[in-house]
């Protein structure tokens, strides 16, 4: 094997090891079918197809967007907002999803304030959700192994170029593994929920007999603060919180 061939082989080996898990081809054709149904106006069929894909454990920002659109057509604003919100988390900077989300949110009667992310969180989220957790982990682990191998090689062959590449690999691997950890942490700690009941009465204590503070409308987003005996403590604006029955809310779940 010539030196040139050796280099090519090494490069192909590295690239091949970075290829993440194969994506779901069968599910994607089902997704396209759902899109066709939605275009035809058969929203109920489209919802059942999209929900089936989701139930099988697959997700994408586009899937959530189309589910949101389907629910919007079915006049279920709460579920529409829920799916658009999830889509935005997965693809923070997709203008089409943002436009759709804004359109549906404009139709929601507001009792609460918009709780938007600050610029740093927004940037961090868009960076974190570039790849899935497993993709970040695979890339990170591969780069770590290659980096350490190169560093070991450098111990034997004192070639400065090898050391540079090894350090580069290790640096990127640390970044990828940190991103995987952060995304995991973010996914399990999403504490937002959307009101799915037409009206949601907020009480000052977790009891039906407690004083009513406010009535939230379907589609409004709240922050979850606590959970007690079938009740959620929610916050709808800064320093404003109360208790609601958990059946009237749907939590944004990403894991």
């Amino acid at each position: 094997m010539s030196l040139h061939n050796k280099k090519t082989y090494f490069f192909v080996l590295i690239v091949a090891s970075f290829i993440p898990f194969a994506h779901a081809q069968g599910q994607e054709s089902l997704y396209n079918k759902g899109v066709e149904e939605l275009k035809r106006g058969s929203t109920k069929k489209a919802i059942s197809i999209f929900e089936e894909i989701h139930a099988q454990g697959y997700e994408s920002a586009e899937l959530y967007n189309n589910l949101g659109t389907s629910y919007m057509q079915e006049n279920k604003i709460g579920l529409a907002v829920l799916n658009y919100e999830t889509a935005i988390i997965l693809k923070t900077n997709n203008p089409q999803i943002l436009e759709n989300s804004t359109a549906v949110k404009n139709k929601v009667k507001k009792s609460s304030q918009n709780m938007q992310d600050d610029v740093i969180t927004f940037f961090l989220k868009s960076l974190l959700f570039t790849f899935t957790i497993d993709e970040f982990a695979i890339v990170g682990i591969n780069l770590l192994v290659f980096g350490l191998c190169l560093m070991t090689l450098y111990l034997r062959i004192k070639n400065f170029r090898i050391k540079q590449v090894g350090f580069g690999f290790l640096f990127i691997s640390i970044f990828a593994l940190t991103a995987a950890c952060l995304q995991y942490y973010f996914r399990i700690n999403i504490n937002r929920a959307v009101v799915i009941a037409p009206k949601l009465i907020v009480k000052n204590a977790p009891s039906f007999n407690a004083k009513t503070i406010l009535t939230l409308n379907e589609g409004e987003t709240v922050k979850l603060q606590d959970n007690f005996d079938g009740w959620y403590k929610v916050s709808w604006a800064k320093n404003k919180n109360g208790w609601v029955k958990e059946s009237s809310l749907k939590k944004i779940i990403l894991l």
Partner: protein
Amino acid sequence: MKIRNIALFSGFLLLLQPFKQYAGVNIVKVREVQQELYRGNDAFLLCVPAKKQVFAGEPFTVNYKLLLSTSVKDAKVVSAPLFRGLSAEEINRPLNFKQEQFRGRNYRVKFLKQVVLTTDKPGKLILEPLTVLLNMELPPDPDDFFPVEKYQEYTLFSEPVQVNVLPLPNLKQSIAKAIGKFNINTSVEKSQVALGNSINYQINIAGRGNASNITPPDLDLPTQLEVYQPTITFDRKLTPKGPATNHLFKYKLVPNDTGNFVIPSLQFTYFDSEEGKYVTLSSAKHEIKVKGSKNSFSQAKTTLTNSIYQNTKNNTSLIIEGTTLYKRKIKFFGSFSFFIIILISFIFYGTAYAYSKYVQRIAANPLLQRKREAIKLAGYGLKSIKNDNSDVAYTQLSILILTYLSARLEMEKVISTTKEAKTMLLQRNIALPVVNQLQEVLSRCYEASYAQEARKDDIKQLCHKTEFILESIEKVTT
């Protein structure tokens, strides 16, 4: 009066609060009131609940009222109940005095506190006392030449009152969303409508009691009537008789066919706290006559739908075609193999690093390197000489021993004679028997290399002896 809560001490009243929790109610903080307790009949402070027996979840009013038949200059509320663990809503109390009879006497009544309480915990509920400080007019002193108005400060508090909170009977608890007394009324805007036009259908649930949890009822309408999201109006007022609520649900119905259709009666279940049972009310049925042609309907329906949401077909930007779907569940990250790969990689690198450092350390010290090489060479050399039956094997063995000794004993020059070797070994505290054995092996080797007949010893035996000697030297010199 429950004297256990009060200690009379040197003519002063010491209120010791809280002593205990009454049915989840915390009484106010420990407080010392330095005024005399009023014991006359000219003033009373009463805690009057609207009911002594209520159901869990049923709101009831409690009045704290001051009864007076004498002149009072000033009245201050010293401590008010906190009603912890209860839902308490204060009502705007009447400011004017009222006349009321109490124990056969007429009194002027002042409401100090009016509150609507609700609890969902069955049991005995003690309504804690309210304490006031009264500046009361004293009766005229017969000894005074001129009648002068005299006032004195007294403390007065209401007696704790017990209210029994009964649990709700089981069964329809899950479907009953209200406790109290309610009515349901339904109405339609018009009984005749043209196809394509909408009609308003209105449900009104009004009454007195706890009804904050009523949600829009599910309508069981004929398929020819399409129903849209209701608009909800909720009104709640606190009155001295309890909270009065009014729910108004306005539905927009759009007929999609001509004919006569019936909006069935609606059922509403609540718990009647006065009768102590669940009551199901039924609303009236409504008949609607739909006239007109189908064309007008489709036009109207499109207009209505568009007014609520844009049509999907006309707004395809809402749909995103094509996607890459990912498995939501994490397979690799955090798995056993994930951590094992990381661990093995670091162990591998750590070992390689430690080895390279060791090699570097040896390379930096020529004596150490010589020692290491001597051991290595001696090992390899003995192995090859063992299997060599040629004449030169004896000479090789003697050279091997002397080379090893020179390196091991860190000599700058190679030791060339047996005597020199012996002296060096003894200087390094090598045991005399070992040194003698070495001398013997070297002598045999010399003899054998010069005289054919002297090769009586097998080379293998000599090698074994040499191994033993070298091991002994290693033990002492390491």
